[in-house]
Protein backbone atom coordinates (compact mmCIF):
# COMPACT_ATOMS: atom_id res chain seq x y z
CA UNK A 1 0.00 0.00 0.00
CA UNK A 2 2.06 2.86 -1.37
CA UNK A 3 -0.18 5.65 -0.05
CA UNK A 4 -0.13 4.31 3.47
CA UNK A 5 3.64 4.13 3.41
CA UNK A 6 3.81 7.74 2.28
CA UNK A 7 1.54 8.86 5.07
CA UNK A 8 3.65 7.04 7.64
CA UNK A 9 6.79 8.63 6.22
CA UNK A 10 5.17 11.99 6.83
CA UNK A 11 4.15 10.97 10.33
CA UNK A 12 7.77 10.01 11.08
CA UNK A 13 8.46 13.73 10.97
CA UNK A 14 5.87 14.63 13.58
CA UNK A 15 7.50 14.87 16.98
CA UNK A 16 6.16 15.04 20.47
CA UNK A 17 7.82 18.35 21.35
CA UNK A 18 8.13 17.44 24.98
CA UNK A 19 9.73 14.07 24.43
CA UNK A 20 11.69 14.92 21.29
CA UNK A 21 10.69 11.67 19.62
CA UNK A 22 8.56 10.91 16.55
CA UNK A 23 4.95 9.90 17.16
CA UNK A 24 5.43 6.75 15.12
CA UNK A 25 8.24 5.60 17.42
CA UNK A 26 6.32 6.48 20.54
CA UNK A 27 3.36 4.36 19.53
CA UNK A 28 1.07 7.40 19.48
CA UNK A 29 -0.35 6.67 16.02
CA UNK A 30 -3.25 4.30 16.49
CA UNK A 31 -4.05 3.77 12.81
CA UNK A 32 -4.79 5.60 9.58
CA UNK A 33 -7.69 5.36 7.16
CA UNK A 34 -7.26 6.34 3.52
CA UNK A 35 -10.28 6.85 1.29
CA UNK A 36 -9.21 8.19 -2.08
CA UNK A 37 -7.67 11.57 -1.35
CA UNK A 38 -9.00 11.80 2.20
CA UNK A 39 -6.73 10.70 5.02
CA UNK A 40 -7.81 10.23 8.59
CA UNK A 41 -5.10 9.89 11.21
CA UNK A 42 -6.24 8.42 14.49
CA UNK A 43 -3.80 9.08 17.31
CA UNK A 44 -3.69 8.54 21.04
CA UNK A 45 -1.69 9.76 24.01
CA UNK A 46 -0.48 8.13 27.22
CA UNK A 47 -3.19 9.69 29.39
CA UNK A 48 -6.60 11.26 29.12
CA UNK A 49 -5.01 14.39 30.61
CA UNK A 50 -1.96 14.93 28.46
CA UNK A 51 -1.54 18.65 28.08
CA UNK A 52 -3.89 19.95 25.39
CA UNK A 53 -1.32 22.46 24.22
CA UNK A 54 1.18 19.73 23.37
CA UNK A 55 -1.58 17.59 21.91
CA UNK A 56 -2.55 20.54 19.74
CA UNK A 57 0.98 20.95 18.44
CA UNK A 58 1.09 17.29 17.46
CA UNK A 59 -2.34 17.45 15.84
CA UNK A 60 -1.35 20.57 13.89
CA UNK A 61 1.84 18.93 12.71
CA UNK A 62 0.04 15.77 11.64
CA UNK A 63 -2.30 17.95 9.62
CA UNK A 64 0.53 19.96 8.12
CA UNK A 65 2.80 17.08 7.13
CA UNK A 66 0.13 14.78 5.76
CA UNK A 67 -1.45 17.66 3.82
CA UNK A 68 1.86 18.23 2.06
CA UNK A 69 1.46 14.98 0.07
CA UNK A 70 0.34 16.06 -3.37
CA UNK A 71 -2.49 13.50 -3.69
CA UNK A 72 -4.03 14.42 -0.35
CA UNK A 73 -7.01 16.77 -0.46
CA UNK A 74 -8.31 16.47 3.06
CA UNK A 75 -6.77 15.46 6.37
CA UNK A 76 -8.89 14.56 9.36
CA UNK A 77 -7.00 14.45 12.61
CA UNK A 78 -8.67 12.33 15.23
CA UNK A 79 -7.22 12.35 18.75
CA UNK A 80 -9.03 9.68 20.74
CA UNK A 81 -9.55 9.11 24.48
CA UNK A 82 -8.58 12.61 25.54
CA UNK A 83 -10.24 15.22 27.76
CA UNK A 84 -10.10 17.78 24.95
CA UNK A 85 -10.56 15.44 21.96
CA UNK A 86 -13.47 17.35 20.43
CA UNK A 87 -11.94 20.79 20.74
CA UNK A 88 -8.59 19.66 19.37
CA UNK A 89 -9.95 17.63 16.46
CA UNK A 90 -12.36 20.29 15.32
CA UNK A 91 -9.92 23.13 15.89
CA UNK A 92 -7.08 21.58 13.93
CA UNK A 93 -9.24 20.32 11.09
CA UNK A 94 -10.68 23.82 10.67
CA UNK A 95 -7.26 25.43 11.00
CA UNK A 96 -8.09 27.40 14.12
CA UNK A 97 -5.57 28.68 16.66
CA UNK A 98 -5.16 26.83 19.95
CA UNK A 99 -6.54 29.75 21.95
CA UNK A 100 -9.75 29.84 19.89
CA UNK A 101 -10.31 26.14 20.30
CA UNK A 102 -9.49 25.77 23.96
CA UNK A 103 -10.62 28.94 25.63
CA UNK A 104 -11.24 27.10 28.89
CA UNK A 105 -7.61 26.23 29.47
CA UNK A 106 -6.73 29.40 31.24
CA UNK A 107 -3.71 31.39 30.30
CA UNK A 108 -3.31 29.63 27.00
CA UNK A 109 -1.47 31.80 24.60
CA UNK A 110 -2.63 32.94 21.18
CA UNK A 111 -0.30 30.64 19.37
CA UNK A 112 2.00 27.86 20.34
CA UNK A 113 5.14 29.15 18.66
CA UNK A 114 6.84 30.12 21.87
CA UNK A 115 6.12 26.73 23.37
CA UNK A 116 7.56 25.05 20.30
CA UNK A 117 10.67 27.17 20.58
CA UNK A 118 11.13 26.45 24.29
CA UNK A 119 11.09 22.76 23.56
CA UNK A 120 13.39 23.04 20.56
CA UNK A 121 15.91 24.56 22.95
CA UNK A 122 15.40 21.82 25.51
CA UNK A 123 15.87 19.16 22.86
CA UNK A 124 19.02 20.93 21.68
CA UNK A 125 20.50 20.85 25.20
CA UNK A 126 19.59 17.21 25.74
CA UNK A 127 21.11 16.04 22.46
CA UNK A 128 24.16 18.24 22.88
CA UNK A 129 24.82 16.90 26.36
CA UNK A 130 24.81 13.35 25.02
CA UNK A 131 27.24 14.30 22.28
CA UNK A 132 29.61 16.05 24.69
CA UNK A 133 29.50 13.19 27.21
CA UNK A 134 30.25 10.74 24.43
CA UNK A 135 33.34 12.73 23.43
CA UNK A 136 34.44 13.14 27.04
CA UNK A 137 34.06 9.56 28.16
CA UNK A 138 34.28 7.39 25.03
CA UNK A 139 36.94 9.36 23.18
CA UNK A 140 38.71 10.96 26.16
CA UNK A 141 38.48 14.31 24.47
CA UNK A 142 39.54 17.21 26.69
CA UNK A 143 37.29 20.10 27.67
CA UNK A 144 39.66 22.45 25.85
CA UNK A 145 39.23 20.50 22.66
CA UNK A 146 35.44 20.30 23.04
CA UNK A 147 34.93 24.04 23.42
CA UNK A 148 37.11 24.71 20.39
CA UNK A 149 36.32 21.86 17.99
CA UNK A 150 34.87 23.02 14.69
CA UNK A 151 31.55 21.88 13.32
CA UNK A 152 33.34 20.54 10.24
CA UNK A 153 35.85 18.59 12.36
CA UNK A 154 33.13 16.97 14.38
CA UNK A 155 31.39 15.89 11.18
CA UNK A 156 34.51 14.12 9.93
CA UNK A 157 35.45 12.61 13.30
CA UNK A 158 35.65 8.82 13.32
CA UNK A 159 32.94 7.59 15.71
CA UNK A 160 31.45 4.30 16.81
CA UNK A 161 28.00 3.37 15.54
CA UNK A 162 26.44 4.72 18.70
CA UNK A 163 28.51 7.87 18.45
CA UNK A 164 27.37 8.41 14.89
CA UNK A 165 23.76 8.13 15.90
CA UNK A 166 24.25 10.65 18.69
CA UNK A 167 26.00 12.98 16.25
CA UNK A 168 23.26 12.72 13.64
CA UNK A 169 20.66 13.50 16.27
CA UNK A 170 22.62 16.43 17.60
CA UNK A 171 23.13 18.03 14.20
CA UNK A 172 19.51 17.48 13.28
CA UNK A 173 18.58 19.83 16.13
CA UNK A 174 21.56 22.14 15.85
CA UNK A 175 20.87 22.85 12.18
CA UNK A 176 17.47 24.29 13.04
CA UNK A 177 19.18 27.15 14.85
CA UNK A 178 21.25 28.40 11.88
CA UNK A 179 24.22 29.32 14.03
CA UNK A 180 26.81 31.49 12.30
CA UNK A 181 29.60 30.22 14.56
CA UNK A 182 31.91 27.60 12.99
CA UNK A 183 32.16 25.85 16.38
CA UNK A 184 30.52 22.47 16.95
CA UNK A 185 29.40 23.37 20.44
CA UNK A 186 27.73 26.65 21.30
CA UNK A 187 24.79 27.70 23.43
CA UNK A 188 21.38 27.58 21.72
CA UNK A 189 21.89 31.28 21.04
CA UNK A 190 25.13 30.52 19.20
CA UNK A 191 27.52 31.82 21.89
CA UNK A 192 30.85 30.06 22.39
CA UNK A 193 31.43 27.98 25.50
CA UNK A 194 34.36 28.78 27.77
CA UNK A 195 36.58 26.49 29.81
CA UNK A 196 35.50 28.29 32.98
CA UNK A 197 31.80 27.84 32.42
CA UNK A 198 32.00 24.44 30.72
CA UNK A 199 31.19 22.27 33.75
CA UNK A 200 28.24 24.40 34.85
CA UNK A 201 26.93 24.50 31.32
CA UNK A 202 27.12 20.74 31.05
CA UNK A 203 25.34 20.26 34.38
CA UNK A 204 22.60 22.58 33.22
CA UNK A 205 22.22 20.65 29.99
CA UNK A 206 22.11 17.43 31.97
CA UNK A 207 19.17 18.61 34.07
CA UNK A 208 17.29 19.38 30.89
CA UNK A 209 18.13 15.96 29.53
CA UNK A 210 16.95 14.31 32.76
CA UNK A 211 13.63 16.14 32.57
CA UNK A 212 13.08 15.02 29.01
CA UNK A 213 14.01 11.46 29.81
CA UNK A 214 11.60 11.52 32.72
CA UNK A 215 8.86 12.39 30.28
CA UNK A 216 10.03 9.73 27.90
CA UNK A 217 10.04 6.97 30.53
CA UNK A 218 6.76 8.06 31.98
CA UNK A 219 4.87 8.62 28.81
CA UNK A 220 5.96 5.38 27.22
CA UNK A 221 5.16 3.49 30.43
CA UNK A 222 1.73 5.04 30.75
CA UNK A 223 0.93 4.38 27.11
CA UNK A 224 1.93 0.73 27.62
CA UNK A 225 -0.28 0.48 30.69
CA UNK A 226 -3.20 2.26 29.06
CA UNK A 227 -3.24 0.32 25.82
CA UNK A 228 -1.69 -2.92 27.08
CA UNK A 229 1.36 -2.67 24.86
CA UNK A 230 4.57 -4.68 25.29
CA UNK A 231 7.04 -3.14 27.70
CA UNK A 232 10.31 -1.51 26.71
CA UNK A 233 13.00 -1.90 29.37
CA UNK A 234 15.43 0.74 30.57
CA UNK A 235 18.00 1.21 27.89
CA UNK A 236 21.09 1.89 29.87
CA UNK A 237 22.91 3.00 26.76
CA UNK A 238 20.61 5.95 26.19
CA UNK A 239 21.32 7.19 29.69
CA UNK A 240 24.88 6.08 30.04
CA UNK A 241 26.56 7.79 27.17
Amino acid at each position, binding site marked *: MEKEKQVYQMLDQVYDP*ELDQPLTELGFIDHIVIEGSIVEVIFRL*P*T*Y*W*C*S*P*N*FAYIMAEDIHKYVSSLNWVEEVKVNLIDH*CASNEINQGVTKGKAFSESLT*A*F*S*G*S*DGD*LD*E*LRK*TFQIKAFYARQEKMIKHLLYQLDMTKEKIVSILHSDLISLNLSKEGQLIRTKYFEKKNLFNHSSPLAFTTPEGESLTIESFSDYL*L*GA*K*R*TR*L*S*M*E*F*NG*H*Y*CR*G*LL*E*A*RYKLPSIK*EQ*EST*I*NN
Partner: protein
Amino acid sequence: MYKLPNGEEIFIIDAHIALWDGSKENQLNIHGDQFISCFYDYHTNLSPDEYIWPKEKFLKYDPETLVKDVFIKGYSDIAIFQPVYLKEFYKNGFGDFDANEELAKKYKNRFICNGTFDPRHGERGLEQLEENKEKYNWQGVKLYTADWYGDSKGYKLSDPWAKRYLEKCLELGIKNIHVHKGPTITPLNRDAFDVADIDDAASTFPDLNFIVEHVGLPRLEDFCWIATQEKNVYGGLAVAMPFIHSRPRYFAEIISELLYWIGEDRILFGSDYAIWEPGWLIEKFIEMELPDDIQKETGANLDLNVKKKILGENVAALYNIDIEAHKKLLKDCSLANHFA
Protein backbone atom coordinates in the same frame (compact mmCIF):
# COMPACT_ATOMS: atom_id res chain seq x y z
CA MET B 1 10.13 2.11 61.88
CA TYR B 2 12.65 0.37 59.70
CA LYS B 3 15.10 -1.87 61.50
CA LEU B 4 18.55 -2.37 60.05
CA PRO B 5 20.27 -5.76 60.45
CA ASN B 6 22.43 -4.24 63.20
CA GLY B 7 19.31 -3.32 65.15
CA GLU B 8 19.44 0.38 64.41
CA GLU B 9 16.02 1.93 63.87
CA ILE B 10 15.14 4.46 61.22
CA PHE B 11 12.21 6.75 61.92
CA ILE B 12 10.06 7.16 58.84
CA ILE B 13 7.50 9.77 57.88
CA ASP B 14 5.61 9.23 54.65
CA ALA B 15 4.84 12.80 53.65
CA HIS B 16 2.34 11.99 50.92
CA ILE B 17 -0.52 9.54 51.31
CA ALA B 18 -4.22 9.53 50.48
CA LEU B 19 -7.41 7.76 51.36
CA TRP B 20 -9.38 8.38 48.22
CA ASP B 21 -12.72 7.38 46.82
CA GLY B 22 -12.50 6.80 43.08
CA SER B 23 -15.39 4.32 43.05
CA LYS B 24 -18.01 4.21 40.28
CA GLU B 25 -20.60 5.38 42.81
CA ASN B 26 -18.58 8.48 43.55
CA GLN B 27 -17.63 9.28 39.94
CA LEU B 28 -19.52 12.27 38.63
CA ASN B 29 -18.65 11.85 34.95
CA ILE B 30 -16.16 10.35 32.52
CA HIS B 31 -13.42 12.58 33.93
CA GLY B 32 -13.74 10.85 37.29
CA ASP B 33 -13.37 7.48 35.59
CA GLN B 34 -10.40 8.67 33.55
CA PHE B 35 -8.66 10.30 36.50
CA ILE B 36 -8.55 7.16 38.61
CA SER B 37 -7.75 5.04 35.54
CA CYS B 38 -4.75 7.24 34.90
CA PHE B 39 -3.61 6.74 38.51
CA TYR B 40 -4.06 3.03 38.00
CA ASP B 41 -1.82 3.12 34.92
CA TYR B 42 0.87 4.82 37.01
CA HIS B 43 0.39 2.14 39.63
CA THR B 44 0.61 -0.85 37.30
CA ASN B 45 3.39 0.57 35.18
CA LEU B 46 5.83 1.35 37.98
CA SER B 47 5.04 -1.12 40.78
CA PRO B 48 6.86 -4.45 41.02
CA ASP B 49 4.45 -7.19 39.85
CA GLU B 50 3.87 -8.57 43.33
CA TYR B 51 2.57 -5.20 44.51
CA ILE B 52 0.00 -4.63 41.78
CA TRP B 53 -3.55 -4.31 43.05
CA PRO B 54 -6.72 -5.35 41.22
CA LYS B 55 -8.48 -2.31 39.75
CA GLU B 56 -11.54 -2.72 41.98
CA LYS B 57 -9.45 -2.48 45.14
CA PHE B 58 -7.60 0.51 43.73
CA LEU B 59 -10.81 2.46 43.13
CA LYS B 60 -11.67 2.42 46.80
CA TYR B 61 -9.80 0.73 49.63
CA ASP B 62 -10.82 0.63 53.24
CA PRO B 63 -9.02 2.55 55.97
CA GLU B 64 -7.66 -0.57 57.64
CA THR B 65 -5.94 -1.57 54.38
CA LEU B 66 -4.21 1.79 54.44
CA VAL B 67 -3.10 1.32 58.05
CA LYS B 68 -1.71 -2.10 57.22
CA ASP B 69 0.08 -1.00 54.04
CA VAL B 70 1.53 2.22 55.43
CA PHE B 71 2.43 1.34 59.01
CA ILE B 72 2.61 -2.42 59.38
CA LYS B 73 3.96 -3.50 55.99
CA GLY B 74 5.16 -0.03 55.07
CA TYR B 75 7.52 0.80 57.99
CA SER B 76 6.20 4.34 58.46
CA ASP B 77 5.89 5.84 61.90
CA ILE B 78 3.85 8.82 60.79
CA ALA B 79 2.03 9.55 57.54
CA ILE B 80 0.65 12.79 56.16
CA PHE B 81 -2.68 12.96 54.36
CA GLN B 82 -2.62 15.23 51.33
CA PRO B 83 -6.23 15.45 50.17
CA VAL B 84 -7.49 17.10 46.98
CA TYR B 85 -11.01 18.18 46.06
CA LEU B 86 -11.59 17.22 42.41
CA LYS B 87 -15.24 18.11 42.91
CA GLU B 88 -15.82 18.46 39.18
CA PHE B 89 -15.01 14.76 38.82
CA TYR B 90 -16.31 13.15 42.02
CA LYS B 91 -19.64 13.64 43.76
CA ASN B 92 -18.18 13.85 47.24
CA GLY B 93 -14.74 14.91 46.11
CA PHE B 94 -11.71 12.63 45.78
CA GLY B 95 -10.36 13.15 49.29
CA ASP B 96 -12.42 13.40 52.45
CA PHE B 97 -11.21 15.45 55.43
CA ASP B 98 -13.58 13.73 57.83
CA ALA B 99 -12.57 10.21 56.81
CA ASN B 100 -8.93 11.20 57.36
CA GLU B 101 -9.74 12.69 60.76
CA GLU B 102 -11.61 9.61 61.83
CA LEU B 103 -8.62 7.42 61.12
CA ALA B 104 -6.28 9.85 62.85
CA LYS B 105 -8.46 9.74 65.96
CA LYS B 106 -8.43 5.97 65.98
CA TYR B 107 -4.65 5.72 65.58
CA LYS B 108 -3.31 8.52 67.71
CA ASN B 109 0.01 10.18 66.83
CA ARG B 110 0.16 8.30 63.53
CA PHE B 111 -1.30 10.82 61.12
CA ILE B 112 -0.99 14.44 60.18
CA CYS B 113 -4.15 15.52 58.38
CA ASN B 114 -3.48 18.28 55.93
CA GLY B 115 -6.23 20.10 54.09
CA THR B 116 -6.65 21.97 50.88
CA PHE B 117 -8.20 25.10 49.41
CA ASP B 118 -9.03 26.50 46.01
CA PRO B 119 -8.42 30.23 45.55
CA ARG B 120 -11.12 30.36 42.89
CA HIS B 121 -13.67 29.93 45.68
CA GLY B 122 -13.12 33.61 46.48
CA GLU B 123 -14.34 35.17 49.74
CA ARG B 124 -16.46 32.20 50.61
CA GLY B 125 -13.44 29.93 50.39
CA LEU B 126 -11.39 32.21 52.61
CA GLU B 127 -14.03 31.94 55.30
CA GLN B 128 -14.16 28.20 54.77
CA LEU B 129 -10.40 28.02 55.21
CA GLU B 130 -10.71 29.74 58.57
CA GLU B 131 -13.48 27.39 59.62
CA ASN B 132 -11.48 24.37 58.51
CA LYS B 133 -8.43 25.53 60.42
CA GLU B 134 -10.62 25.87 63.48
CA LYS B 135 -12.20 22.46 62.96
CA TYR B 136 -9.21 20.39 61.79
CA ASN B 137 -6.22 22.40 62.99
CA TRP B 138 -4.44 22.04 59.66
CA GLN B 139 -0.68 22.52 59.69
CA GLY B 140 -0.41 22.20 55.97
CA VAL B 141 -2.38 22.11 52.75
CA LYS B 142 -2.06 20.25 49.49
CA LEU B 143 -2.77 22.41 46.48
CA TYR B 144 -3.78 20.95 43.18
CA THR B 145 -3.32 23.81 40.78
CA ALA B 146 -4.57 21.78 37.83
CA ASP B 147 -7.98 21.15 39.41
CA TRP B 148 -10.98 22.23 37.37
CA TYR B 149 -13.48 24.72 38.67
CA GLY B 150 -16.38 25.79 36.49
CA ASP B 151 -14.87 27.01 33.23
CA SER B 152 -11.37 27.27 34.67
CA LYS B 153 -8.93 24.43 34.12
CA GLY B 154 -6.37 25.56 36.62
CA TYR B 155 -4.80 28.38 38.59
CA LYS B 156 -1.42 29.68 39.58
CA LEU B 157 0.06 30.52 42.95
CA SER B 158 0.92 33.94 41.60
CA ASP B 159 -2.77 34.78 40.96
CA PRO B 160 -4.03 37.62 43.20
CA TRP B 161 -6.59 35.37 44.87
CA ALA B 162 -4.00 32.67 45.53
CA LYS B 163 -1.91 35.30 47.28
CA ARG B 164 -4.82 36.24 49.52
CA TYR B 165 -5.23 32.60 50.48
CA LEU B 166 -1.54 32.24 51.23
CA GLU B 167 -1.73 35.38 53.38
CA LYS B 168 -4.56 33.73 55.24
CA CYS B 169 -2.46 30.60 55.72
CA LEU B 170 0.29 32.70 57.21
CA GLU B 171 -2.17 34.39 59.52
CA LEU B 172 -3.70 31.07 60.61
CA GLY B 173 -0.38 29.30 61.07
CA ILE B 174 -0.80 26.86 58.17
CA LYS B 175 2.88 26.80 57.32
CA ASN B 176 3.42 23.93 54.93
CA ILE B 177 2.16 24.43 51.43
CA HIS B 178 2.45 21.23 49.37
CA VAL B 179 1.98 21.92 45.70
CA HIS B 180 1.41 19.30 43.04
CA LYS B 181 3.76 20.00 40.16
CA GLY B 182 3.84 16.67 38.53
CA PRO B 183 3.77 14.95 35.21
CA THR B 184 0.96 15.17 32.70
CA ILE B 185 -2.52 15.92 33.92
CA THR B 186 -3.86 19.05 32.33
CA PRO B 187 -2.17 22.33 31.69
CA LEU B 188 -2.39 25.71 33.23
CA ASN B 189 -0.54 27.49 30.57
CA ARG B 190 1.67 27.16 27.56
CA ASP B 191 4.14 25.25 29.64
CA ALA B 192 1.87 22.99 31.56
CA PHE B 193 4.22 22.12 34.37
CA ASP B 194 5.75 25.48 34.81
CA VAL B 195 7.06 25.83 38.35
CA ALA B 196 7.69 29.57 38.05
CA ASP B 197 4.66 30.44 40.20
CA ILE B 198 6.39 28.68 43.11
CA ASP B 199 9.27 31.10 42.73
CA ASP B 200 6.95 34.04 43.01
CA ALA B 201 5.01 32.65 45.97
CA ALA B 202 8.13 31.53 47.82
CA SER B 203 9.75 34.95 47.66
CA THR B 204 6.50 36.72 48.59
CA PHE B 205 5.98 34.40 51.59
CA PRO B 206 9.38 33.61 53.08
CA ASP B 207 7.74 32.35 56.29
CA LEU B 208 5.77 29.64 54.54
CA ASN B 209 7.36 26.40 53.36
CA PHE B 210 6.66 25.33 49.80
CA ILE B 211 6.98 21.63 49.20
CA VAL B 212 7.01 20.96 45.49
CA GLU B 213 5.59 17.49 45.12
CA HIS B 214 7.16 15.29 42.47
CA VAL B 215 10.22 17.58 42.64
CA GLY B 216 8.87 19.55 39.76
CA LEU B 217 9.44 16.69 37.35
CA PRO B 218 9.37 16.92 34.40
CA ARG B 219 10.80 20.37 34.98
CA LEU B 220 13.74 19.38 37.10
CA GLU B 221 15.94 22.14 35.74
CA ASP B 222 13.42 24.87 36.63
CA PHE B 223 12.73 23.34 40.00
CA CYS B 224 16.41 23.08 40.92
CA TRP B 225 16.96 26.64 39.83
CA ILE B 226 14.11 27.94 42.00
CA ALA B 227 14.90 25.74 44.98
CA THR B 228 18.51 26.89 44.89
CA GLN B 229 17.38 30.52 45.04
CA GLU B 230 14.57 30.15 47.57
CA LYS B 231 15.51 28.49 50.82
CA ASN B 232 11.88 27.84 51.78
CA VAL B 233 11.35 25.52 48.81
CA TYR B 234 11.50 21.75 49.36
CA GLY B 235 11.30 18.76 47.05
CA GLY B 236 8.82 15.94 47.71
CA LEU B 237 9.91 12.65 46.15
CA ALA B 238 6.43 11.26 45.48
CA VAL B 239 6.18 9.97 41.89
CA ALA B 240 9.96 10.18 41.37
CA MET B 241 10.41 7.44 43.97
CA PRO B 242 9.07 4.37 42.09
CA PHE B 243 11.68 4.80 39.37
CA ILE B 244 13.97 3.18 41.91
CA HIS B 245 12.51 -0.14 40.78
CA SER B 246 11.99 0.16 37.03
CA ARG B 247 14.68 2.73 36.18
CA PRO B 248 17.22 2.48 39.02
CA ARG B 249 20.00 4.25 37.22
CA TYR B 250 17.74 7.06 36.20
CA PHE B 251 16.54 7.41 39.80
CA ALA B 252 20.15 7.58 40.96
CA GLU B 253 20.76 10.43 38.53
CA ILE B 254 17.71 12.32 39.78
CA ILE B 255 18.52 11.95 43.47
CA SER B 256 22.13 12.93 42.94
CA GLU B 257 21.04 16.04 41.04
CA LEU B 258 18.74 16.99 43.88
CA LEU B 259 21.47 16.45 46.44
CA TYR B 260 23.81 18.56 44.37
CA TRP B 261 21.40 21.44 43.85
CA ILE B 262 19.15 21.66 46.88
CA GLY B 263 21.05 19.57 49.39
CA GLU B 264 20.20 16.80 51.82
CA ASP B 265 18.03 18.91 54.17
CA ARG B 266 15.27 19.79 51.74
CA ILE B 267 14.34 16.47 50.14
CA LEU B 268 11.31 14.65 51.56
CA PHE B 269 10.14 11.08 51.16
CA GLY B 270 6.58 10.47 50.02
CA SER B 271 5.06 7.31 48.58
CA ASP B 272 1.94 8.80 47.04
CA TYR B 273 0.07 5.86 48.54
CA ALA B 274 -2.12 4.22 47.24
CA ILE B 275 -0.54 4.77 43.86
CA TRP B 276 2.48 2.96 45.29
CA GLU B 277 2.93 1.05 48.53
CA PRO B 278 5.62 2.61 50.70
CA GLY B 279 7.10 -0.70 51.89
CA TRP B 280 9.00 -1.65 48.77
CA LEU B 281 9.99 1.94 48.05
CA ILE B 282 11.61 2.25 51.47
CA GLU B 283 13.35 -1.14 51.28
CA LYS B 284 14.87 -0.29 47.92
CA PHE B 285 15.82 3.22 48.98
CA ILE B 286 17.67 2.01 52.05
CA GLU B 287 19.47 -0.62 49.99
CA MET B 288 20.46 1.62 47.12
CA GLU B 289 23.92 2.97 46.48
CA LEU B 290 24.80 5.61 43.95
CA PRO B 291 26.78 4.20 41.02
CA ASP B 292 30.39 5.38 41.15
CA ASP B 293 30.30 7.44 37.97
CA ILE B 294 27.20 9.35 39.09
CA GLN B 295 28.65 9.95 42.51
CA LYS B 296 31.86 11.17 40.96
CA GLU B 297 30.10 13.51 38.57
CA THR B 298 28.00 15.36 41.15
CA GLY B 299 29.94 14.59 44.33
CA ALA B 300 26.60 13.62 45.85
CA ASN B 301 26.55 11.65 49.07
CA LEU B 302 23.70 9.27 49.82
CA ASP B 303 24.93 7.59 52.99
CA LEU B 304 22.70 6.33 55.79
CA ASN B 305 22.59 9.70 57.53
CA VAL B 306 21.36 11.37 54.38
CA LYS B 307 18.78 8.63 53.86
CA LYS B 308 17.53 9.12 57.42
CA LYS B 309 17.06 12.81 56.74
CA ILE B 310 15.12 12.15 53.57
CA LEU B 311 13.00 9.40 55.11
CA GLY B 312 11.94 11.29 58.19
CA GLU B 313 14.09 13.95 59.81
CA ASN B 314 13.50 16.63 57.19
CA VAL B 315 9.71 16.32 57.36
CA ALA B 316 9.87 16.16 61.15
CA ALA B 317 11.58 19.54 61.14
CA LEU B 318 8.83 21.07 58.99
CA TYR B 319 6.07 19.74 61.22
CA ASN B 320 7.85 20.37 64.55
CA ILE B 321 8.04 16.71 65.43
CA ASP B 322 10.57 15.73 68.08
CA ILE B 323 11.46 12.24 66.88
CA GLU B 324 12.71 10.88 70.21
CA ALA B 325 9.67 12.19 72.08
CA HIS B 326 7.38 10.88 69.38
CA LYS B 327 8.84 7.39 69.56
CA LYS B 328 7.78 7.30 73.21
CA LEU B 329 4.25 8.39 72.28
CA LEU B 330 4.01 5.59 69.75
CA LYS B 331 4.84 2.94 72.34
CA ASP B 332 1.22 3.15 73.53
CA CYS B 333 -0.23 2.98 70.03
CA SER B 334 -2.51 0.04 69.28
CA LEU B 335 -0.25 -0.89 66.38
CA ALA B 336 2.79 -1.22 68.61
CA ASN B 337 2.29 -4.96 69.21
CA HIS B 338 2.81 -5.56 65.48
CA PHE B 339 6.39 -4.41 65.83
CA ALA B 340 7.30 -6.19 69.04
